[in-house]
C-alpha cells in the first residue's frame, strides 16, 4: 500500500503515488518535466537544484517528496514570470553573470529569494550565494548583478 503525497508545484496541485522517499529533484525533472532545476551533484554541495519551498530557498536533491507534503514548491520556471526575476535577469545579462548557464537557474533562485526576503538589505548577496557554486564567472558579475537588481527594485 503506497502513501499518496500531495504537493503544490508552481501553483498546481500534484499527486505523487510513487516512492515517498524519492528525491523531489527527480520528481520535478522526470515526472513534471521541470528541467530548469539542475542536477549538479545530488548531495547538496553545489546549489544547482535550488528551489523555493514556502518562501524559503531549499535544495531539491536533498528533499524527499514526503518532506514537502502539503507545502508549496516554486521552481525557476515559475519564478521567471515575476518582475523581480526579470529585473535580476536583465542585470545578469548586463553584468556578465552567466556563462555556461548550468548553475544559473540555481543562482537565480537563490538571489530571487534574497530579494524577496524582508532582510535583503541586511544580508549581502554573497551571503545569499554561499550555497551556490559557479565555475565560470568568478561570482563578481553575479554579485554586481544582484546589487544592481536590488537598487532597481528599490529594496
Amino acid at each position, binding site marked *: 500500500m503506497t502513501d499518496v503525497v500531495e504537493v503544490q508545484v508552481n501553483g498546481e496541485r500534484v499527486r505523487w503515488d510513487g516512492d515517498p522517499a524519492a528525491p523531489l529533484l527527480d520528481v520535478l525533472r522526470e515526472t513534471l518535466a521541470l*528541467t*530548469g532545476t539542475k542536477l549538479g551533484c545530488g548531495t547538496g554541495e553545489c546549489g544547482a537544484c535550488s528551489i523555493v519551498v514556502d518562501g524559503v530557498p531549499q535544495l531539491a536533491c536533498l528533499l524527499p517528496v514526503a518532506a514537502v507534503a502539503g507545502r508549496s514548491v516554486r521552481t525557476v*520556471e515559475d519564478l*521567471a514570470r515575476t518582475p523581480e526575476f526579470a529585473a535580476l535577469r536583465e542585470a545578469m*545579462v548586463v553584468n*556578465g553573470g552567466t556563462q555556461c*548557464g*548550468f548553475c544559473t537557474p540555481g543562482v537565480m533562485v537563490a538571489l530571487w529569494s534574497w530579494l524577496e526576503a524582508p532582510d535583503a538589505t541586511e544580508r549581502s548577496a554573497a551571503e545569499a*550565494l554561499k550555497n551556490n557554486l559557479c565555475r*565560470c564567472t568568478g561570482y563578481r558579475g553575479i554579485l554586481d548583478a544582484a546589487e544592481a537588481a536590488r537598487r532597481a527594485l528599490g529594496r
Partner: protein
Amino acid sequence: MIDFRSDERAKLSGATRYVADLQLDGMLVGGVVRSPHPHARIVRIDTSRALAIPGVRAVLTGADVPQVVFGPTAVKDWNILARERAIMIGDEIVAIAATDRRALAAALAAIEVEYEPLPAIFDPELAMREDAPAIHPGTERNRPLHVKVERGDVDAALAGAHLVVSRRYTTNRIYQGYLEPNAVIARWDDGGLTLFAPSHIPTRARETYAAAFELPLEQVRIVVPPIGGSFGGKYVLKIHLIAAALARAAAAPVKIVQDRTDDMEAAHPRVPIVTEIRIGVDAEGNFVGKDVVVYADAGSRVYWSPNVVQTACTRPDNLYDFGAVRAEGHLVYTNQSPTTCMRGFGNAEALFAVENVIDEIAEQLGIDPAELRRKNVVRPGETTIHGWRISSCELDACISEVQRLSRWERRASLPRWRGMGIALANHVSGFRPIDPRFEGSNAVARIDADGNVEIETGEIDLGQGLPGAYAALAARVLGVETERVVVRSGDTGLMPYGIGTLASRATVIGGGAVVQACEALLALLAPYRDGDAPIARAAGAYGAANGGNRAEASARYTPDTEMPDKRGYGNASPNYPFAAHVAEVEVDPLTGKVRVVGYWAAHDSGTIVNPVGARSQVIGAIAQGIGWVLMEDLLVGGGRVANPSMMDYRLPGSDDVPPVEIAFVETPDPNGPFGAKSLSECAIDPVAAAVSNAIAHAIGVRGCDLPLTPERVWTLLASARSAAVPA
C-alpha cells in the same frame, strides 16, 4: 538540431536544455561497473544475475564490443570496455542498459567480477624505471612521449651566467569542476550512430568514435547540446562510446548521466607536472639560458596529455627572450585515471615555475620583479626562439597598467603578512599543430529580407561566449544590430566543418571565417544594393531575383600560419595575446591560511569583441586560478581518489574571490578579426604564479608545490622560523 541563440535569457530562466534534460522515445538508462583495483587481471565476469533482473536490456563486457585499439591522438591505447586487464581504479569493466534507474542500480550491483591484483605504479618518475610494471606492454619505459628541444648552447650560457637559479616545482591534479556532470545520449538508426554529446571538439570525437566502431565517418553524427562548463574536460570521452555500444546492443536510445562521485573518481584532471628548471642571468638581469626537465603523469591512457607536455616544455620561451633554451619532457603512464586538458594547459604549469624563478632572480639581484620582467619580454615585430612572429605585443603597456591599477609602489611598504606578486603570460589564438591536415574554419552567413541574420559555424560554445562574439563580428561587417544575429553551431551532420574549441582558437580562427562569410555575403548583395541602403533591402531584392527571400554565402578561413618543422620551429598561430597580473594576499601566520585581498589584470587581447563577456572570462579565470593555487587538489592515494565530492574537493565560493580590476590594452592586431586576439586561456596562465609570488613576498619563503594550502604555508613558516634560530 540545437539552436544557439545569442541570448543568455534562456539560460537565466532555466529554459536551456542540456543533454541530461533531453528525452527520446523509448530511451534506456545506462551505467558502468568500474574496477576497484588500480591494476588487475580480469579472471572471470558473471553477468547472469544481472541479466535476470526485469528491465535489463543489455549487459556488455569487453568481449561484446569491437576489439579495435584506437585513441584521439597519435597514441592508440583506448578500448571501449576493459579486456583481460583493468589498468586503473574506475576502469570500465561492464556496461548495462535498463528501462529505469532502479533496475539499472540492481543490475550493476548484481555483476560479479573476479580479479587477480597485479603490481601497480603511481609515480611517473618511478614508472619510467626498467623494473616498473608495464601498463601498456610495448611502450618502452611506460613513456608514450619523449620530447627533446634545444636551441643555442644552454650549457655554455649557464656556465657563463652571473647567477643561475635552479628549482623543482610541482603542480597539482585539478578537477575541471564543470557544474554539469558528464552525460550523453546515443541512438542508432539506418544512417548509423547519433550521439548527443557535450564535446567541444566534436569532429575529432567523431573520427575517434568512427574508428572505435569501424564505421565510415559519415555514419557517425555528433549533436552538441549546450555544454554546462568544460574547461578542457569534455573532449573525447569513453562514456560516449559506452552509451553507443549499449544503444546498439539494446536497439534503443541510451542515456548515461554520470553521478558526481563517478565523475570525480574517474575524472580526467589537469596533468600534474614536475618541472626541474634552471634559469641563468647576466649581472644586468638579462636572461641568458633556460633548461627544463618535465615529468608529466598521463594516467593509464593517453587523452590529450602529449600536447600538454609539448606546451609545458616550450611556450614560456615565446614570452621572454631566454637566449638559449633546452627542454626534455617525459609523458609517463601510471595506474591512475587519464589526465587531460584544462584551460591554459601546459603553459600555466610552466609559468608557475618560470615566474617563481624570475622572482627569486629579482630578489637576488635586487631588481624590482616587474622591471626585471619588462627587461626580458618579447617585443612586437620580433620572431621568437621557436619561430613565432609577434605581430603585436603590448606587454610593456600591460606591466605599466597593472602597476598603476595595483599601486605597485605600495609593495615596498606593505604591512606585515601582506604580500604582492606579479606574473606575466602569453598564449596562442589557435595552434597550427592541433590538426596538421587543416587548421582553418568554415562559416555560413545568411540574411533575409527582414534583416534576420543567421551564422553557422563548426566551432563550439562551451559557455565562453562564442555566440555573442560571432554575433558582434557579423553585426559589425553587415551593419546590423547584434540582436538580429542568431548563431548556430554544434552538429557534425549539419554544420560547416570546424576543428572545435581548443587552443583558444574560437574568436580568431572561427571568427575569421564568420567575418569572411559576412564579407562574401556583402559582395553577393552588392549588385542588389542601392548605395548605403540597409542590407536587408538588398537581401529582399536578391531573393526576388533568385528565388526565396534570403541570401547566403559561405567562406573558409585559413590562418596565415606555419606548421612547425620536426624541431618545433614555426609561426604556429595567427597572433599571440599577453597579460600582466598582480595579486595581493594576506597570510594568517597562526594558521597558514591565505586570503587573496586584491587582484589586478592587464590584458593585451587586441580589440575586445564582447566587453561584458571578456570581463566575465577574466574574472572567472582568476577565480579558477585562485582555487588551483590555494585549495584544489584531487587527492589520489594508491590510485584511489580520496575526495570525490564537491564537499571534500572545494571549489572557490563567492567569498574566495576578491574584487578584480581589469584593464584591456586594445591595440588591434593585424591578423585577427577586427584586430582581436584570444583571451580566456591567457587569463588563467599567470594566476598561480602571481598568487604564489605574493605569498612568498608576504612570508619570505617560497612554496614550490601546489596547492599552497594552510598546512603547507604554515609548514613553510615553521621551517623558516627554525632555520632562523641560531644553533
